[in-house]
């Protein structure tokens, strides 16, 4: 089991090699080294998977050293290998490898390519710490580490101030969540006297369901998850995070990092099961985010922004699943989402690459014939995300929907509505980019090199077939993925839906999806409508959607501006007008007092004598009185 140490150490090694040797490494060397190490890490993860399987145990802990040990606070630097973390490890390293390889092609020729791969490797390392940590604090190390790497990589092209701003925004939004997270960890520690997963979960059973403490703990942890997984109200950083290179968006802001919140809640499933209030909050937030982000996605014209909002929306679905107590379903959706969203982003990257850096879908079109591989893979991913069988997204999304139906048909209706919107904007994107005429004359798109297309193909296969990991009973499967996770994640068992209803629901959603796709086809291919340019005045609602409901502006007005003016106020008024003068005036007062008493010292001896006599008199009187 000590092999597990290699999993995070290999990317760390890669970080050190590419980071320290960044002046020496030439051309693609850094990319190759980084990719190889992550690939090795993936191989080790897979090996671990089989070792664990053959050992017959559910989990294993590997302790590295004692990190902090004070009083009852004992935090080992240890890794927990169980079914959940193995799943995440394989996703992170597997998808990570593909994206690393893809990046070799994508980042080819960038002057800071070595630095890029160093940061990517550091990210992989942090993400592995996050998913492998055996206690909340090691998880937190990774949690913040991925935040840092995301900061670095969003601002990778640091010469652009807007990118830097986006990077800072991402980091700070994450930090807001992190504060909640760390307070949650502390409350957890002071409740259970431990932050190690196994010990906490063991003791958690003693707590009453719905008690204040457990609700508070879960809510605080949830705040962290909201920040990291870009849920309302802390989601605005993720669309801006698209400032980074596209592979970064694929790896960090779609496939892995943003799912950390889902992982954390799934990991804490025992706690969350005890807090029904929190679960309800999660359902509300998840559903709201899913629909809200999907609506915004309808009107975005930047290819990466569309994908970003779709990510936010899909994360909302995962939260919905979590809130419904279907943790393994959520993780399953994480997995399939990782496949198809990574594919979408990489495909988008390929398109951008081909278009020479152009990201506006209004200026694309007709790329189907120019970029056949990209088109096909992109199509697979679009079908997957829309939930068309047998693509992977269908399985995971349908499971979430049916869980929602079990809980409340209303939830189901809303979730389905969100799914339809998703389907619409995804096909809108697909049609605008690949169908119709090329809308920019002087660009000559060309298919990306093999090093980029091969990962696309692999991911396309995964997106297509990934769903078969978890075939529902309805289709004669036995939920292999979910039951694999059951040892690590305690899902709430709802009553089994009868198959007829389920069948009906699937049929309903498929019909609706077909209508939506046709509608999109009608609008964007047949009528060849192109979204209006920025200068065109839109109707009020559409304008609001196009401007992302002005949430950024709202935040700026409510938080940023007041903080800035408070800062100025404190410095200009409190510091410079009250505190500083207060001190200076004490000094000045002394000087004034000196100037006053100086007048007494005017050198008149008879005055001195008077003063002396008066003093002696007072003195004697004083003695007499006392």
């Amino acid at each position, binding site marked *: 089991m000590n092999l597990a140490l290699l999993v995070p150490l290999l990317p760390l090694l890669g970080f050190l090699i590419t980071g320290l040797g960044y002046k020496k490494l030439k051309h693609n060397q850094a990319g190759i080294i980084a990719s190889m190490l992550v690939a090795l890490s993936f191989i080790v993860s897979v090996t671990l998977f089989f070792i664990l399987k053959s050992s017959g145990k559910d989990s294993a802990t590997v302790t590295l050293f004692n990190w*902090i040990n004070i009083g009852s606070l004992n935090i080992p630097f240890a890794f927990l290998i169980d079914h959940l973390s193995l799943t995440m490890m394989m996703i992170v390293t597997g998808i990570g490898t593909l994206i690393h390889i893809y990046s070799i092609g994508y980042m080819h020729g960038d002057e800071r390519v070595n630095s890029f791969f160093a940061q990517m490797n550091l990210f992989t390392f942090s993400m592995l710490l996050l998913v492998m940590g055996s206690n909340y604090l090691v998880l937190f190390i990774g949690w913040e580490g991925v935040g840092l790497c995301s900061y670095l990589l969003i601002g990778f092209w640091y*010469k652009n*101030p807007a990118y830097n701003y986006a990077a800072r925004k991402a980091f700070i939004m994450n930090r807001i969540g992190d504060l909640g997270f760390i307070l949650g960890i502390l409350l957890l520690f002071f409740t259970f006297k431990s932050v190690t997963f196994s010990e906490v979960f063991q003791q958690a059973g003693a707590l009453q369901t719905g008690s204040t403490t457990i609700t508070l703990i879960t809510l605080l942890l949830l705040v962290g998850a909201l920040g990291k997984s870009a849920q309302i109200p802390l989601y605005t950083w993720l669309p801006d995070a698209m400032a980074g290179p596209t592979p970064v968006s694929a790896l960090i802001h779609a496939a892995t990092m943003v799912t950390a919140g889902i992982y954390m809640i799934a990991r804490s499933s025992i706690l969350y099961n005890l807090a029904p209030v929190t679960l309800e909050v999660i359902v509300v937030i998840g559903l709201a985010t899913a629909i809200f982000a999907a609506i915004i996605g309808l009107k975005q014209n930047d290819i990466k922004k569309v994908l970003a909002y779709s990510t936010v929306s899909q994360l909302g679905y995962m939260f919905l699943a979590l809130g419904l107590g279907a943790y393994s379903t959520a993780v399953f959706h994480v997995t399939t989402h990782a496949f198809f969203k990574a594919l979408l982003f990489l495909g988008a990257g390929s398109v951008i690459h081909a278009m020479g850096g152009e990201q506006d879908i209004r200026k694309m079109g007709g790329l189907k014939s120019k970029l056949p591989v990209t088109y096909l893979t992109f199509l697979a991913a679009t079908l997957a995300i829309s939930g068309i069988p047998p693509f992977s997204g269908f399985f995971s999304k349908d499971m979430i929907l049916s869980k929602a139906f079990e809980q409340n048909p209303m939830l189901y209706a809303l979730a389905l509505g969100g799914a339809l919107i998703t389907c619409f904007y995804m096909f809108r994107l697909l049609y605008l980019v690949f169908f119709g005429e090329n809308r920019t004359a002087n660009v000559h798109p060309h298919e990306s090199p093999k090093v980029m297309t091969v990962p696309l193909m692999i991911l396309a296969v995964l997106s297509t077939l990934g769903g078969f990991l978890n075939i529902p009973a309805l289709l004669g499967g036995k939920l292999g993925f979910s039951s694999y996770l059951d040892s690590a994640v305690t899902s709430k068992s709802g009553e089994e839906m009868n198959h007829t209803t389920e069948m009906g629901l699937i049929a309903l959603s498929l019909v609706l999806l077909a209508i939506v796709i046709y509608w999109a086809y009608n609008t964007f291919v047949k009528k060849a409508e192109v979204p209006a340019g920025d200068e065109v005045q839109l109707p009020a609602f559409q304008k609001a959607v196009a401007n992302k409901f002005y949430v950024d502006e709202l935040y700026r007005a409510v938080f940023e501006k007041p903080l800035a003016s408070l800062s100025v106020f404190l410095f200009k008024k409190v510091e410079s007008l009250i505190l500083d003068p207060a001190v200076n005036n004490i000094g000045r007062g002394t000087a004034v007092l000196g100037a006053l008493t100086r007048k007494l010292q005017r050198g008149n001896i008879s005055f001195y004598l008077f003063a002396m006599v008066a003093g002696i008199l007072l003195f004697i009187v004083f003695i007499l009185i006392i």
Partner: protein
Amino acid sequence: MILLILLLIPFISGLAVAFFKGTQAARTFAVASAILNLVITIFVLVNPVSEGYSAEWIGFMNIQFNLATDGISLVMILLTNLLFPFVILAGWGRSQRNVPMLNSLILLTQAALNGVFMAQNAFLFYVFWELALIPVYFILLVWGGDDRKSITLRFFIYTLAGSLFLLFGIIYLYQLTPGSHTTDFSAFNQLQIPEQTQTWLFWILFVAFAIKMPVFPFHTWQPPTYKMASTQGAMILAGVMTKMGIYGALRFLFPIVPLGVQFWQPVVIILGLIGVIYASVIAFKHTNLKTMIAYSSMAHISLMAAAMFVANEYAVKGLLFQVMSHGITIAALFYLACLVKEKTGSTEFHQLGGLKNKAPIFAILFLIAVLGSIALPLTAGFVGEFLMIAGLFQQSFWYALFGGLTMILGAIYMLYAYQRVMLGGQKPVFEKVTDLNRLDYIILIPLLVLIIGLGVFPQPVFDMIKIAGSALTMAH
């Protein structure tokens, strides 16, 4: 005896170096002395000395010259002697006036600081406390930047005024001791002072420390002083001298006036938390790198003050750990700020930007120091702040929440600073800017390695302060 050596090496070599003629000779000698002291300090850490050093001093007042160490002072001494070689090195290769005198003053400061942290006698403590101020005063006055005269004067008088209260407190305690009076800490600690007295005596003793730290609202001397100070001055002031306040408070308040501490605890914690938010918010809109670092230092110290008064095990250990980590981080930050100034001629944000284009390694090291300052996990700052917030949490959720805001606010202003200095397009003015040279590596790499190293392996420091923490919580 070895403790006395720790004190005497910088003292004697400080006096000696003043008579050197050659610039480089003086610097080499000073660094050698500081490194020797560091080696001895490490030796002391590895082989703890149980008995201190004691000698007759002022016989008729029954005041002894006695030195000893415990966990708290070990941390402080280690920090002091760790930073001073770098402080002295920071002057290398730079044109400075009267180098022998400067190095002499730096070494004398070191001696006085060592004395403060080892004194077992309130009077001796006070003597060293004031003694440390004198060389620093001259370092600031002679080698400082713009407007140094008035700023230094204010700093000097401000701290001196605080010390006056301390002296009064010490004399008051002295005459309370039974029998032939004494100023030994051990005698002070055994005093049973009535609660009424403790409540006012607390402030008498605390004011000096509060000014030194500084705690809101006693901080107004600090930002201009740090801004004006030379690199070495700022490193000493921010790195070590602020810790004198913390050390003093730990040494005086908790054992001697525990009831006073109990009485004023909420007030001071809230003052500390106000300081955290106040300083962070001000830093947010500051336009000068050095002032911003000064406010960030104040924010961290305020959190430390709050944690100190929570006085549970986590808070105190976190505090002592943070003493180390903050000292190292802030020294590195000030050195980096000095490099910025050297390379560009300014620390005003509106004149800076895009340094990363020309000096990528500089930018990376700067970023690491910034990350240490904003308490990213696996840097030393995180361990300290996490434990302090844990301590605050044990007292009250709200304390922890407001203390924890430093995580967010710190990230806001420090990353803003990083962005304004390093990121952005290349400015034509900075065409000739070069990356770091070997000396910069010698100073920065060890400091940054320590920042990360302590973040990954904090346990040795905790083992070192194990004794201290238990003593404190007992006194409380």
